[in-house]
């Protein structure tokens, strides 16, 4: 009996590289194998393991929207051995991809609701997939608001898309940078994400909030949302615990009875409240 090797990645060719901010890059990846390309499907919220052959695998979300066919994108910061090797790649080079893994953002359940996306720093990529997905299904939703903060103007990722969202009438974008991170021509806000969210005068009614960012941003944003009247099941986030397999076997991402790679990475705050805070 021959079974499939679940650890075997797809070979992907890098067709586009975008320098997002210092040490942050976006790769557009296309399947080398045409049959694989045709059979591949994913939903927003899912992630994969990306290989730099010679160094190993790293876990990132799929940062592009499933409505954009023919490729996937990932955005990563160069912080370790694998991401450094990936950062050295050029257009035309081959990397590996395993996935899609994990659960999804429940867009069907959000039909007819207002959406508020709140992201900090390098945590915009997982939400960017959802935002584009929702924009491509625009008539499913009511108001779409995005609050995005970074340490400095230089640290904002997807600058060209932020510009596009600013110009679009069907999405409201609020950008902010930490005090001291602004430039003379900066037209966005200056301040941390939680107070900026508080000042927006959001209503929790018929609204879901999707929050992703560094632990401190999430920790300080949740009380603000609670104050605004958001219930724990109206708040979504996506976790990224360390993973090796992505298949619910290697044990690394396990917290409480949950495997982030299988039961996540998407959780509501109500679900997270049931887990030990080991993420």
């Amino acid at each position: 009996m021959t079974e499939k090797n679940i650890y075997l990645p797809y070979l992907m060719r890098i067709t586009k590289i975008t320098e997002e901010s210092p040490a942050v890059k976006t790769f557009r990846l296309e399947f080398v194998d045409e049959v694989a390309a045709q059979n591949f499907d994913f939903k927003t919220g899912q992630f994969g393991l990306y290989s730099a052959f010679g160094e190993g695998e790293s876990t990132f979300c799929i940062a592009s929207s499933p409505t954009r066919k023919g490729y996937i994108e990932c955005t990563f910061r160069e912080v370790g051995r694998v991401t450094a090797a990936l950062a050295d790649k050029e257009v035309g080079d081959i990397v590996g991809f395993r996935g899609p893994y994990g659960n999804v953002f429940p867009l069907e359940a959000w039909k007819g609701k207002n959406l508020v996306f709140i992201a900090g720093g390098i945590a915009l990529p997982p939400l960017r997939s959802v935002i584009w997905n929702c924009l491509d299904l625009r008539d499913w939703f009511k108001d779409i608001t995005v609050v995005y903060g970074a340490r400095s103007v230089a640290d904002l990722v997807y600058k060209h898309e932020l510009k596009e969202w600013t110009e679009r009438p069907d999405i409201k974008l609020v950008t902010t940078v930490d005090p001291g991170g602004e430039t003379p021509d900066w037209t966005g806000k200056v301040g941390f994400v939680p107070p900026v969210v508080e000042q927006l005068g959001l209503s929790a009614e018929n609204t879901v909030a999707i929050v992703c960012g560094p632990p401190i941003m999430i920790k300080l944003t949740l009380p603000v949302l609670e104050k605004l009247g958001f219930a724990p099941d109206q708040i979504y986030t996506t976790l990224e615990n360390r993973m090796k397999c992505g298949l619910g076997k290697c044990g690394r991402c396990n917290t409480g009875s949950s495997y982030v790679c299988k039961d996540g990475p998407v959780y509501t705050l109500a679900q997270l409240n049931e887990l030990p805070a080991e993420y």
Partner: protein
Amino acid sequence: MADTFKLTHENLDSLFAALRKDGRRILAPVDGDGRTELNEVEKPSQVAKGYIQTIMSAKDVVFPKVERLLSYTTAPGTVELHDAEPKALPTVLFGVRPCEAKAFGALDAVFNWDYRDKFFNARLEKMAVIGVSCLKADDACFCTSLGGGPADTAGSDILLTPIESGYLAEVLTVKGKAIQALAPNLFTPGNGVDKAAIAAKLEQAFDQPALTAKLPGMFENELWEDQALRCIGCGACAYVCPTCVCFDIQEEADPKQGQRLRCWDSCGFSMFTLHASGHNPRETQSARWRQRIYHKFSTYPERYQMLGCVGCGKCTRACPVDMNLREHLVEAANV
């Protein structure tokens, strides 16, 4: 109900010969260098006597310490991937204890829920277990607290219980019957031996279902910190454990070729959950100790309807700072 037979010492000799003739290697506990470990044997006389347990578990027969998952060759602009095939040898595991035989079920649960792991499965398929019941236990043993027992049949294809003239042989599974079929006349009719009277006596140390039920409510209990104070995070417990399945995936490569390897790992290591950002969800050794207990006694029952521990006590015997899992569980059960 198992078919029960008698297998004399002479007939076990012949059975070993028949198994080898059938192209199977026999792994059994062997004494050497002051320790008892699994090794390939040709005849029963080579098998250790009087051992309670081997130090290492038998899990590497189905889950090797290091296993190649794939390999590749690279050149500018191209990568050629090569699938890896596990070298699964027909193997009979002789003389493992009932606790360890049962442990393969816990490994199977992880390797085959949802995604199926072909490496594990290829090896498991070619492995048969001839377990041998325990006639003695030590203060690390606690199988009877976890629903097992010194003569428990779970996980064995054939279970042997030593009797005066040889063994009582319970043929339990299709694989067991296939072994019997190699030399059916070696298995003579069994009499009404009372297995329980022969096997080791081991009192139940704590109420496991009650412990499992209360674990979710005692996550913040200071007991975990107290118990872990002396833990040095060496990971020996995980390496000797027959059910510990957590693994790492590592790359071994030079500029032109490489391979991806699965290696044993331990949730007790400080880097196990360390994020690239420097954030570590389980920053302290006590959080990692608690994870070990919860994974085996709370997560496993919830996800796989079984325990992630068989009470073999290997971790306790291997621990360099004398942490006794049975005692720690008794303490937790008494909270």
